[in-house]
């Protein structure tokens, strides 16, 4: 016995050199497998970094916007000729004349040549008059006064300042003339033309001018749809899941329902869009482009996911908890609502929020129900025309202007921000409600 261990002779099969060779092979296989896994993770990370880098480098400039500080005289005779503050007069007034006048005064050397004046006026965004009007709408005391305000510069000026339009391009092929460049440099030297943080992109709606376009309206549309989706999909989905999991008899019919729910979760989303178009718009006559229809379609789309997640969460609650409640004489419903559901809550909430995050990023079904619309104003309610964040991104991505290319990426960043917030919320809810048993 001691001899055998001393000279380590191959006494049994576990001491043979053959066995040592096999052992090494096993370890090698394991090492290789780890290397594959690590490689897969690095490839995935590389793609993610590339994606984020592309989006951020494209989109970051869109969060800065060139603006011009001008002293605008709010002409009382034009804005409020009667002196009564009539809202129609205020809305109708020609603010473009006032801001252009202010610009010309600032540039000082424009002259009276029509072409030169038009070139000067193009330095300002065509939405500058709207900004002027908004100031009056917010503060009536401005009427008849001279105020210093920041007005949005034209998209081409913005592109020039951000370096997208090169000075070296011949003038006849450049979107900015030499004279305009001279004015821009003069305004910069006076500290009247600056890149400022872009609030427009968060607050405004669709616009043909990139400098006046924003995702605010689309975000509100998305928010309304999500609210409708939560209000409908969560109770319906959870109730359906509870019934199927806890009350329904296990027979062929319920098996069929289960298979169908699982299949519905895999149905392409555009099919739900066609369904929404046929049922909600053509049959029930709900308006096109309305958040209510979008919310209903997204509800249909999220239901299978929520039902599956809820059933899984209910199944994961140990049966001993059910037994304990039933053994005390709780009715089935009491056992479920007092004990099983609270324990399943983290899973249900996580599943629901992930389904909603998915719904938030959904584009295809919304195209089918007319959410791909040019919506400038905020929707007043769920029946008003609206659009959604991903649809807005889709629409901007079709436009050629430099400013829209940047805004497309910026809007993607905003959408990703929303998704991150929702996922963080899911994790927070899960840890908050998690109980051990």
């Amino acid at each position: 016995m001691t001899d055998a261990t001393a000279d380590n002779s191959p006494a049994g099969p576990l001491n043979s050199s053959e066995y040592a060779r096999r052992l090494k092979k096993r370890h090698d296989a394991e090492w290789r497998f780890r290397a594959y896994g690590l490689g897969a993770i690095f490839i995935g990370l590389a793609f993610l970094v590339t994606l984020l880098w592309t989006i951020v480098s494209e989109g970051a400039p869109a969060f800065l916007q060139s603006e011009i500080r001008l002293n605008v005289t709010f002409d009382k005779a034009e804005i409020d000729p009667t002196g009564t503050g009539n809202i129609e007069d205020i809305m109708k007034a020609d603010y473009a004349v006032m801001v252009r006048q202010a610009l010309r005064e600032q540039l000082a050397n424009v002259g009276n040549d029509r072409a030169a004046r038009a070139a000067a006026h193009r330095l300002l965004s065509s939405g500058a008059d709207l900004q002027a009007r908004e100031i009056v709408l917010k503060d009536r005391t401005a009427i008849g006064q001279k105020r210093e305000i920041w007005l949005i510069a034209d998209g081409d000026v913005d592109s020039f300042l951000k370096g997208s339009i090169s000075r070296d391009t011949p003038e006849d092929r450049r979107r900015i003339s030499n004279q305009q460049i001279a004015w821009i440099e003069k305004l910069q030297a006076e500290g009247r033309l600056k890149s400022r943080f872009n609030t427009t992109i968060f607050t405004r709606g669709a616009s043909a001018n990139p400098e006046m376009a924003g995702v605010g309206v689309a975000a509100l549309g998305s928010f309304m749809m999500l609210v409708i989706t939560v209000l409908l999909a969560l109770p319906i989905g959870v109730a359906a899941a509870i019934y199927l999991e806890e009350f329904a008899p296990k027979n062929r019919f319920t098996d069929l329902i289960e298979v169908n729910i699982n299949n519905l979760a895999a149905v392409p989303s555009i099919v739900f869009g066609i369904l929404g178009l046929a049922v909600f718009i053509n049959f029930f006559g709900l308006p096109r482009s309305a958040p209510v229809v979008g919310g209903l379609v997204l509800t249909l789309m999220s239901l299978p996911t929520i039902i599956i997640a809820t059933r899984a969460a209910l199944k994961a609650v140990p049966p001993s908890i059910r037994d304990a409640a039933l053994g005390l004489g709780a009715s089935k419903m009491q056992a479920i609502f007092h004990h099983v559901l609270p324990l399943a809550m983290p899973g249900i909430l996580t599943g629901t929020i992930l389904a909603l995050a998915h719904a938030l990023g959904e584009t295809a079904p919304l195209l089918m129900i007319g959410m791909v619309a040019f919506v400038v104003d905020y929707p007043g309610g769920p029946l008003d025309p609206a659009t959604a964040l991903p649809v807005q991104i889709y629409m901007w991505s079709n436009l050629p202007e430099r400013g829209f290319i940047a805004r497309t990426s910026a809007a993607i960043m905003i959408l990703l921000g929303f998704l991150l917030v929702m996922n963080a919320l899911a994790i927070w809810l899960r840890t908050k409600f998690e109980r051990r048993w």
Partner: protein
Amino acid sequence: MEMARTMTETKAVGASSTEAPKFKIKMSGRGVNVHYGAKHALKTVDIDIRENQVTAFIGPSGCGKSTFLRCLNRMNDTIDACKVSGDLKLDKQDIYDKSIDVVQLRARVGMVFQKANPFPKSIYENIVYGPKIHGLATGKQELDEIVEKSLRGAGLWNEVKDRLLDSGTGLSGGQQQRLCIARAIAVSPEVILMDEPCSALDPIATAHVEELIDELKSKYTIVIVTHNMQQAARVSQRTAFFHLGVLVEEDDTANIFTNPRDERTQGYITGRYG
């Protein structure tokens, strides 16, 4: 062990010397058959369970003793494939009758499970849950009284009285099981069913629970399923031996362990199989 045996023997002798039976029948089964789908799990079981006594069900795994226990408060209802036939009576009332509300039945026939299963809530909430759903108490004071009484009844009061609001799942295994017993007696049941209550406990915790069972029998009728024959001998007055879905023999515990009538019982208690 020797001690327990002599004790039960003297008890049995005492019982047989008095002519008129001093016990009442609390629950009874006549011709009880249970099927799980195609499997015939219990075959024509006839048994009487005496009031204020401890009845132990013993037998090898899969013999049907737990199945029969779960018939007594209709916990088998939760299993779809399970079909129960025959007569099962609680105080001469058929518990499988349509007029019986299973919620009320389970309040009268409480249950303690193999694995301690406190709700993941505070100790206090664990106890008051039953009384609350049955509307047995109104107001905080009454509930407080029930909590103290139940925890004292389960011999747990002194250990947890300062931390009633701590989680019930934070207790040790033995304490959790006693908490489950306290939770069961908080509803003031008439019968308590225990399904291998000590199988997950260490010997000291087991001793605690066994003492408790002995005390509880003055107030409640107790049916206990156990794998442990010594435990059956220590805590029970009556023992029923199940084998392959058949109730082989049911008698005073002393008789079962000293003088079984059936060969199979003899074989099991002497450890030849099981």
